[in-house]
């Protein structure tokens, strides 16, 4: 038997590590700036490109896609080659993947501060960059699967499964959520609107966390943790259960981001139930990781690599306990829109992703350069700085969330709000924002120390590529038991499908029948177990043993497991008209000027601090006005419900204040709302809207279902001028002189329209579609009176 020597492509691994460390520091530096802006608004510098609402997406994109993305690719390329005993099949594809990904990151770093954004959270990049992401991902996929096909190792280790689920699921999520119709080279509108857009977006957003920030890192955990501890994973059997349960359940949980909103109840309930169920596989994986260290805890005390891994896995456990907790409707009622969510994602991102990255880098870099780590002491200090930083950050956010959430909800015996001024609740949590910035800064210092340590390590050695020797064999034909048919005919597959069908039928059934069906599911499991035992006694090859060697079949089964949840949740909302009620012609699309203003609202990233979703709670109705309804958003491409309230909800803002208030507020927020931390937007007065694009904007909107007439499209430019002139005249009468086509006028037009769509209650006579909304009546026209509790509110 001949052997051949294989040299792994570790050059690309070194490149991805370097990119991850550099972009990680940049992304976290931007994060510390953004955190500081929350405490000290002056740090916005009144410059568009450094304003919180524009750099917050830059921070999230940099940390998720640049820091964790590059780290993930480094781990995948390193471990895949070794687990498959094969060099990546194409160095060219690896190079295209690396440089393509970095170009995408640079494009994001340029476009986001410029305000070029779709405004969909964690998917803010505009369509040309989205296309580039899809292409680079396909290159990665081809390189990965082609290497799988050329492997010199029969078995697929569990880490490879997690990588497979990442490659296929991210492709599906990215493509579905990014579907948009371009207006120009750098501007597009989501093809989905309102409720549908919200559901698709958070199906994507949640599962980006699942399949970009979790599954690949779990694969990395299953490879690098045993490697660093020098012992096999605690339970390989548990890792099998962990994988299938996680990929099947995760995809259903997206709607937990939309609890108590206008999303249909059935979708909210599904999201909540599956989120709670998700706790089990998540903790299964966490315990499997920690128990791998059994008998090696003495090493953890001395080895910074194992310290980072052990703490990272522990943070994963904490975050995946907190996630299901936050997904319970009653908990979400308090926590949603508060800093609890920010604390939760940072315990995951800094604790799980950041620490797993640090552990992997400290383990890998010495080996990639044939040397030892330059300073263990520096790595130890990094660990403690990072840990204390995370603890400060998370506790500050918990305290902030509890304080603000309870202040929002506090009502007097007569039903009025105890804290009617929103800004009062913001001032109360300012100390927590300072602590948060301090915690983030400590973590950043640790990252910089790591960069220095890794740099010195690399300089003290020389780049070396790993090698291995494999036996050259002629390909063996698949035996009768290992054909594709054996995969399809496998009993576990059919038992699983029948079991899932029974569970679905429970939804149709009254209680007694449901109990019988559940009994049938348990019986099915028992029969499956007995048959599996019998096969084992006869030494028949197991179904698992067949599929774990067949990447194509494995990938298809993974895709099916993932798609079941996505299809069940998305299709009914997208295909059934009744899923979002339409009240008919009284629902009016935005006027040309309002649409221009809305585009500015998106550009400036107002959604990063303001929601447009009044939840059906007494305190919210008292503070903001009538609860929002699904039918009010049917022309919102994209939706703007937001996920955080640093400022108040804006859905019922229209007509609440005069135009002058809005002008003054945008120029100097503290002149109308003392104590606010909102940045000023003085450039809105200087800049001009693209007036000539009005007709095209309406025309593009019509292509995605907004019912503009030919006449409205033809007269869009003159209509927007007429509506703007009313605002200009009103402001001029109060001593403010602005150009009709200045951005501030369009934005005021949009803000005055918010929540005033009378379409939710049919009118006797439909109003003209392009009715200007420049007046400032005491109550929104055509709306029922606000909820029982009188609006004592000032929206500041």
């Amino acid at each position, binding site marked *: 038997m001949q052997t051949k020597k294989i040299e792994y492509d570790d050059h690309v691994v070194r490149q991805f590590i370097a990119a991850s460390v550099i972009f990680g520091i940049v992304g976290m530096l931007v994060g510390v700036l953004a955190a500081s802006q929350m405490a000290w608004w002056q740090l916005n510098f009144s410059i568009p490109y450094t304003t919180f609402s524009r750099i917050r997406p830059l921070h999230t994109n940099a940390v998720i896609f640049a820091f964790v993305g590059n780290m993930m690719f480094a781990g995948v390329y390193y471990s895949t080659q070794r687990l498959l005993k094969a060099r990546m099949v194409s160095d060219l594809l690896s190079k295209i993947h690396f440089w393509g990904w970095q170009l995408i990151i640079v494009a994001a770093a340029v476009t986001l501060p410029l305000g070029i954004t779709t405004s969909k959270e964690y998917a803010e990049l505009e369509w040309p960059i989205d296309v580039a992401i899809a292409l680079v991902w396909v290159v990665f996929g081809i390189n990965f699967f082609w290497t799988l096909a050329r492997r010199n190792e029969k*078995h697929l280790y569990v*880490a490879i499964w997690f990588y497979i689920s990442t490659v296929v699921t991210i492709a599906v999520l990215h493509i579905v959520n990014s579907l948009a119709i371009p207006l120009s080279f750098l501007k597009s509108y989501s093809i989905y609107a309102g409720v549908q857009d919200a559901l698709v977006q958070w199906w994507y957003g949640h599962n980006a966390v699942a399949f970009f920030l979790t599954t690949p890192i779990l694969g990395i955990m299953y490879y690098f943790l045993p490697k660093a501890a020098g012992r096999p994973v605690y339970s390989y*059997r548990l890792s099998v259960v962990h994988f299938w349960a996680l990929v099947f359940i995760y995809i259903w949980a997206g709607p937990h981001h939309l609890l108590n909103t206008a999303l249909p109840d059935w979708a909210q*309930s599904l999201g909540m139930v599956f989120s709670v169920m998700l706790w089990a596989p998540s903790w299964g994986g966490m315990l499997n990781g920690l128990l791998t260290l059994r008998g090696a805890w003495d090493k953890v005390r001395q080895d910074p690599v194992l310290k980072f891994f052990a703490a990272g896995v522990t943070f994963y456990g904490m975050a995946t306990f907190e996630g299901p907790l936050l997904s319970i409707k009653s908990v979400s009622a308090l926590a949603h829109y508060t800093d609890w969510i920010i604390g939760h994602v940072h315990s995951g991102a800094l604790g799980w992703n950041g620490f797993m990255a640090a552990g992997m880098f400290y383990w890998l870099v010495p080996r990639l350069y044939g040397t030892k780590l330059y300073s263990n002491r520096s790595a130890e200090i990094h660990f403690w700085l990072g840990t204390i930083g995370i603890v400060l950050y998370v506790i500050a956010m918990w305290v902030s969330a509890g304080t603000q959430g309870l202040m929002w909800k506090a009502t007097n015996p007569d039903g009025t709000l105890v804290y009617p001024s929103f800004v009062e609740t913001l001032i109360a949590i300012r100390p927590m924002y300072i602590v948060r910035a301090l915690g983030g800064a400590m973590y950043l210092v640790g990252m910089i120390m790591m960069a220095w340590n890794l740099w010195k390590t690399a300089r003290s050695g020389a780049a070396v590529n790993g090698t291995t020797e494999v036996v050259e064999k002629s390909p063996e034909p698949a035996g009768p038991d290992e054909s594709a048919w054996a995969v399809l005919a496998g009993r576990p597959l059919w038992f699983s499908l029948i079991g899932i069908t029974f569970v679905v039928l*429970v939804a149709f059934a009254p209680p007694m029948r449901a109990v019988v069906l559940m009994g049938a599911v348990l019986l099915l*499991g028992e029969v499956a177990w007995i048959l599996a035992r019998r096969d084992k006694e006869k030494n028949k090859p197991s179904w698992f043993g067949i599929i774990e060697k067949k990447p194509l079949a494995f990938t298809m089964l993974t895709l099916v497991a993932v798609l079941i949840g996505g299809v069940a949740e998305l299709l009914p909302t997208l295909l059934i008209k009744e899923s979002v009620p339409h009240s008919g012609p009284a629902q009016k699309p935005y006027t040309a000027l309002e649409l221009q203003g809305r585009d500015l609202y998106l550009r400036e990233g107002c959604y990063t601090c303001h929601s447009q979703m009044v939840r059906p709670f007494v305190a919210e109705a008292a503070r903001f006005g009538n609860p929002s309804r699904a039918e009010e958003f049917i022309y919102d491409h994209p939706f703007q419900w937001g996920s955080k309230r640093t400022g108040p909800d804006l859905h019922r803002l229209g007509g609440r204040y005069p135009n002058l208030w809005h002008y003054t507020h945008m120029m100097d927020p503290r002149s109308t709302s003392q104590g606010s931390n909102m940045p000023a937007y003085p450039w809105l007065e200087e800049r001009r809207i693209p007036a000539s694009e009005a007709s095209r904007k309406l025309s593009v909107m019509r292509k995605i279902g907004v019912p503009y007439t030919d006449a409205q499209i033809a007269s869009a430019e003159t209509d927007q001028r007429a509506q703007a002139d009313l605002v200009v005249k009103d402001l001029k009468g109060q001593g403010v002189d602005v150009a009709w086509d200045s951005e501030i006028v369009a934005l005021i037009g949009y803000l005055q329209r918010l929540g005033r769509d009378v379409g939710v209650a049919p009118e006797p006579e439909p109003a003209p579609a392009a009715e200007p909304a420049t007046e400032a009546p005491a109550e929104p026209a055509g709306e029922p009176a606000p909820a029982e509790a009188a609006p004592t509110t000032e929206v500041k």
Partner: protein
Amino acid sequence: MWKTFYQGMDYTELPLFAMLLFIGVFVAVILRVTVARRASDFDPLAAMPLQPDANEGESR
């Protein structure tokens, strides 16, 4: 069909049944993984990451 499906999904019943089923499966898996005799079938798979590169020592 979809309409019927979601109409039949009672707000309080489904989560309850799902939760019971989930707990049943969860307990079964826990028992299977922790109580059942550890099969040696998976040992070679579990050891896969521990195979070193030809030129890989511990960090030198």
